[in-house]
């Protein structure tokens, strides 16, 4: 307990960095995942191909490997960004595949007659998706999307382990390895830190779920 209190600033900046990674990666993965889901249900075979390949690659590839690529592959190609961005984007790419699948299953839960009616009044594919199908898919999408986001928050630790530095996970490493503190109390602090992020996130998602449940 003493270790945690003594190093509170380190824990707090760690939590802030973790939150930052998660906010950027979360927003980016929701954006990419939604577009990909649109690709996967599109009438155009090339777009479907892109969506399917993307999901196949990122859903079946370990996150560590994706991050290895971002951290060591891209610099070899002469692409250089601060690792914070490589790590965050890597996490977003990986998560987008799961977001896509959650949204796609939501799209498939909307009765096909809805999209047919939309097309029959002359809405294009994109319009019928955004005005008719997606708003009705939201209700079924929120619970699985919540699990994806919580998993992403936990996966952000791997981004930290890769050396973004300064996130919650890295704070634990710094304390145990560099400063030689006992592992058990330090890690207890790390666990509390993650729970302080994931539990409220879960509660927020629960509220959202109840909100959209009453929407027709």
């Amino acid at each position, binding site marked *: 307990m003493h270790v945690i209190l003594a190093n509170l600033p380190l824990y707090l900046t760690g939590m802030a960095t973790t939150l930052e990674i998660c906010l950027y990666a979360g927003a980016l993965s929701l954006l990419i995942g939604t577009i990909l889901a649109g690709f996967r249900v599109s009438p155009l075979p090339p777009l479907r191909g892109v969506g399917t390949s993307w999901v196949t690659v990122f859903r079946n590839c370990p996150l560590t490997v994706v991050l290895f690529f971002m951290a060591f592959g891209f610099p070899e190609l002469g692409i250089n960004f601060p690792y914070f961005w490589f790590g965050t984007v890597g996490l977003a790419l990986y998560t987008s595949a799961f977001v896509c699948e959650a949204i796609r299953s939501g799209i498939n839960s909307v009765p096909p007659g809805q999209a047919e*009616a939309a097309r*029959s*009044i*002359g*809405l294009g594919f994109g319009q019928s998706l955004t005005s008719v199908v997606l708003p009705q898919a939201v209700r079924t999408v929120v619970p699985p999307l919540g699990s994806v986001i919580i998993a992403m928050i936990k996966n952000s630790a791997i981004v930290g382990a890769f050396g973004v530095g300064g996130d919650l996970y890295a704070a634990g490493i710094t304390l145990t390895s560099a400063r030689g503190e006992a592992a058990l109390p330090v890690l207890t602090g790390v666990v509390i830190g993650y729970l302080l992020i994931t539990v409220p996130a879960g509660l927020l998602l629960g509220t959202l779920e109840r909100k959209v449940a009453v929407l027709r």
Partner: protein
Amino acid sequence: MIRASAVDKHFGSLHVLKDITLDVPRGQVVVVLGPSGSGKSTLCRVVNRLEPVDSGDIAIDGVPLPAEGRELAELRADVGMVFQQFNLFAHKTIVDNVVLGPVKVRRIDKETARQDAMRLLERVGIADQAGKYPAQLSGGQQQRAAIARALAMRPKVMLFDEPTSALDPEMINEVLDVMADLAAEGMTMLVISHEMGFARRAAHRVLFMDDGEIAEDSTPEDFFRAPRSERATDFLSKILTH
């Protein structure tokens, strides 16, 4: 107004439309009937290309149906479709259902579209339901809202796929009345329906479909009095007895 020539359509190995040729002039009301599985719905759906055809040509008002994309969407906007299961947008109020197409497709401003929508809802007799969601309406009211939604696009042709067969008997007439008014105003209509009263009252022409083919093409009087084929006689005796 609707012209189909030599249209063929398969679902896998099932030959659903067999060399269909059909010409519906402007203002004509055509009732299509026939046994289940004979291809009536498919005929209706290929006319606005909700189903693609294998071969043959379909033209609306002289314009051949484009393959996909923007031009197809534009053409569909000119063809109103009414479904057996209504298919009103479940997350929108009745008036918003009617407004969506004019605003998104025709780019009419929201206020004008809303006024038009209210006039149409008035016309089909459900203006007082405008603010409700589809699930709060009776089947007959929902189907009338669906007709208003289609009419809001000012279509050149209206397609009806068994518009009253999902309705309780006491609601059938309120929908048929709206359709008969539309017919009287000169709308070109292709109506799949087994409602003989409507066919006699409003149709100029009756098509009997059997096994993917148009087996008979005649006037309502002739068809109901003396169908030419045995299949049609048999079919009529069945729908008359229930």
